[in-house]
C-alpha cells in the first residue's frame, strides 16, 4: 500500500488531488459521476460578501487546447452559502475549501470572517487573481504590496488554513508568492487563468461579452508548470499546483516540480470523473516506480 496523504500546513489531505474553484460547482453537480469523498479536497465556487450577477453572456470561447471564460464571479453571496449550501457540502467526507473573492479589502476580510465560523470548512482559498471583474480580483494579485495588504487583513479575520491563489499575469510570480508568505499565508495555489482574448473574424467582433477573459486548459500547462517550479523554490510554505492538468501524468509532473498538492479545473468539463481517475493514476505510478509515499516525488525533479 502506498501512502497518498499529503499536508497543506496543518491540513491533512487523504491524497493530493483537489478540484479547482469555478470548475466543480459545489461538488453536488458531480456526485452522479464519481465518488467525491475519494478526493483530497474540493474547492467550491468563488464566493463574495454580496451576491453578484456575473458578466453578460457570452462567457465562454473554446481556443486551441484551451478555453476562455468570463464568468465574473457569479454567486449568491456568502450568507446564501452559509444558509443553503454549507448544510449540503459539509456532508462530504472530504475537505471542503471555499474560494473567497472581493472588490475591496474590507469585503475580503468580512467574507473570510463569516466563513471562519463554519466548523466544517477547514480552509479558504483567497482569490486575488480573478481576471474577469472590473474591481478587485486580479488587481490585488499583480503587485506584491497590494497582495500582502489583502492577505494581512484576511489573516487577522481568519484563523484556519489560508491558501492564496496567485495570478500568472505578472512578470515575476515568486515576488508575489514571497509577499503573501510574508503576510501570513499558509500556502499558495497557482495558477489562476491567463488573460486572453478571442475574436470572431466573420462578425469582426470579440466573442466574449467582456472582450477579454481567463484562459485555462491544457494550453496553459507549460506556463503553470514553470511557475510552480519557480515558486516552490522561492517559498517555504506548501505550493498547490494547477493549470491544464488532464491526467495523472500531468498531476505527477506538478508534484515533481514541487507542488504538495494539485487541482483539476477545466478537465472536469471533459470528463466529470477525471479527478477520481487521477487519484488512481498517481497510486499506480507510485507503485510502478517502487515509491512508498507521494511525499517521495514532491519536488523530486532530478
Amino acid at each position, binding site marked *: 500500500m502506498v501512502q497518498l496523504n499529503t499536508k497543506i500546513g496543518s491540513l491533512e489531505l487523504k491524497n493530493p488531488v483537489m478540484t479547482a474553484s*469555478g*470548475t*466543480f*460547482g459545489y461538488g453536488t*453537480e*458531480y456526485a452522479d*459521476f464519481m465518488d467525491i469523498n475519494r478526493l483530497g479536497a474540493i474547492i467550491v*465556487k468563488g464566493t463574495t460578501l454580496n451576491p453578484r*450577477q*456575473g458578466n453578460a*453572456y*457570452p*462567457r*465562454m*470561447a*473554446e481556443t*486551441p*487546447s*484551451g*478555453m476562455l*471564460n468570463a*464568468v465574473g464571479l*457569479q454567486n449568491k453571496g456568502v450568507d446564501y452559502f452559509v444558509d443553503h449550501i454549507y448544510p449540503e457540502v459539509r456532508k462530504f467526507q472530504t475537505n471542503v475549501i471555499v474560494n473567497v473573492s472581493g472588490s475591496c479589502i474590507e469585503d475580503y476580510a468580512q467574507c473570510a470572517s463569516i466563513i471562519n465560523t463554519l466548523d466544517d470548512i477547514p480552509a479558504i482559498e483567497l482569490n486575488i487573481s480573478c481576471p474577469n471583474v472590473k474591481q478587485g480580483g486580479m488587481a490585488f494579485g499583480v503587485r506584491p504590496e497590494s497582495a500582502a495588504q489583502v492577505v494581512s487583513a484576511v489573516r487577522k479575520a481568519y484563523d484556519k488554513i489560508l491558501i492564496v491563489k496567485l495570478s500568472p499575469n505578472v512578470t515575476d510570480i515568486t515576488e508575489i508568492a514571497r509577499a503573501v508568505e510574508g503576510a501570513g499565508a499558509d500556502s499558495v495555489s497557482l495558477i489562476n487563468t491567463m488573460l486572453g482574448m478571442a475574436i470572431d473574424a466573420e462578425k469582426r467582433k470579440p466573442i466574449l461579452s467582456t472582450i477579454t477573459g481567463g484562459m485555462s*486548459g*491544457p494550453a496553459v500547462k507549460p506556463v503553470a508548470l514553470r511557475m510552480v517550479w519557480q515558486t516552490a523554490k522561492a517559498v517555504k510554505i506548501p505550493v498547490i499546483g494547477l493549470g491544464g492538468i488532464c491526467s495523472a501524468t500531468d498531476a505527477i509532473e506538478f508534484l515533481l516540480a514541487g507542488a504538495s498538492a494539485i487541482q483539476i479545473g*477545466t478537465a*472536469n*468539463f*471533459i*470528463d*466529470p470523473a477525471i479527478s477520481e481517475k487521477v487519484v488512481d493514476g498517481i497510486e499506480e505510478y507510485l507503485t510502478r516506480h517502487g515509491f512508498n509515499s507521494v511525499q517521495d516525488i514532491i519536488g523530486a525533479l532530478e
Partner: protein
Amino acid sequence: MLVADNRLVGPCATLLTLQYPGELPEMVAGQFAELQVPTAKVLLRRPISIHAIDRERNLVEFLIQIVGEGTQSLAELKQGDKVNVLLPLGNGFSYRTTHVARPLLIGGGVGVAPLLFLGQKFAAHGIRPTFLFGGRTEGLILRKEEFRKYGDLFMTTEDGSAGEKGFVTNHSLLMDSESFDRIFACGPTPMLKAVAKWAKEHETACEVSLEHRMACGIGACLCCVEDTADEGNVCVCKEGPVFNIDRLKWFN
C-alpha cells in the same frame, strides 16, 4: 456508447444513432446530451439534443448540423466506434404537466432536432401535432418524411422553394391564433425571439429551447447563462435548455 449508424441526411447534416448499453434511462423531449468529440482538435464536449429514441432497441438518435471541427468529427464516426456521452441532461419541454391539445412545434434549421422526439411523445398521447419549419431553402429542412409520420408539416423557405416564402412567423397558419394552445420552438435566437413576440402578442403559451455555448453541461461552470425575470442569470444547461418565455427578459 457504440455507434450503431451514422449517415448524411442533408447537405451538411448527419444522423448519428448510438446504442445505449442496457436499458435507456427516462428521457424527456428537449433534453440533450454532451458528446465527447473524437479529435484532439476539439477540447470540450458538444451539446446535442436528443432527436429521437427507440426504447425497444435502446437506441438514441442525434441530428447534427456540421458547422465546425467538432460536428465534422462527429459526422465522421463509423459504425462500431465508441463515443463517450453524458445523457440525459437539462430540462425538456413541459408536455407532460400541461394540458396541451393543439400543440404547434416550430423549428428553424437544425433546431428541428428535438421536435421529432417531442412529436413522438405527443403521438404516444394520441395527439397529432402541427410542425412548422423554416429554412433558407427546401434542402435545408431536414427529415421531412420522418416528421410527417407524427404530425402535419408546414414550411417556410426564404427562397420560396418549399412551403410559403418568408419566415415562420409570417406563415398563414398563424393567421388564426386560436388554432394552437401551446407553441414549442427551437432554432436560431432571432427566430425564437420572433416566435416569442408573436406568442406574447397573441397570448399563446410558448416554450423555447436555447442553444447557448456550454463548457460543462451540468451546471458547474456558469458559462451558459440566460437572464431570467425571477432568478437573474441561470444556467441554460441545468435550468433549461427549454424555458417558458414568461421567464425570459426578452421584452423588457
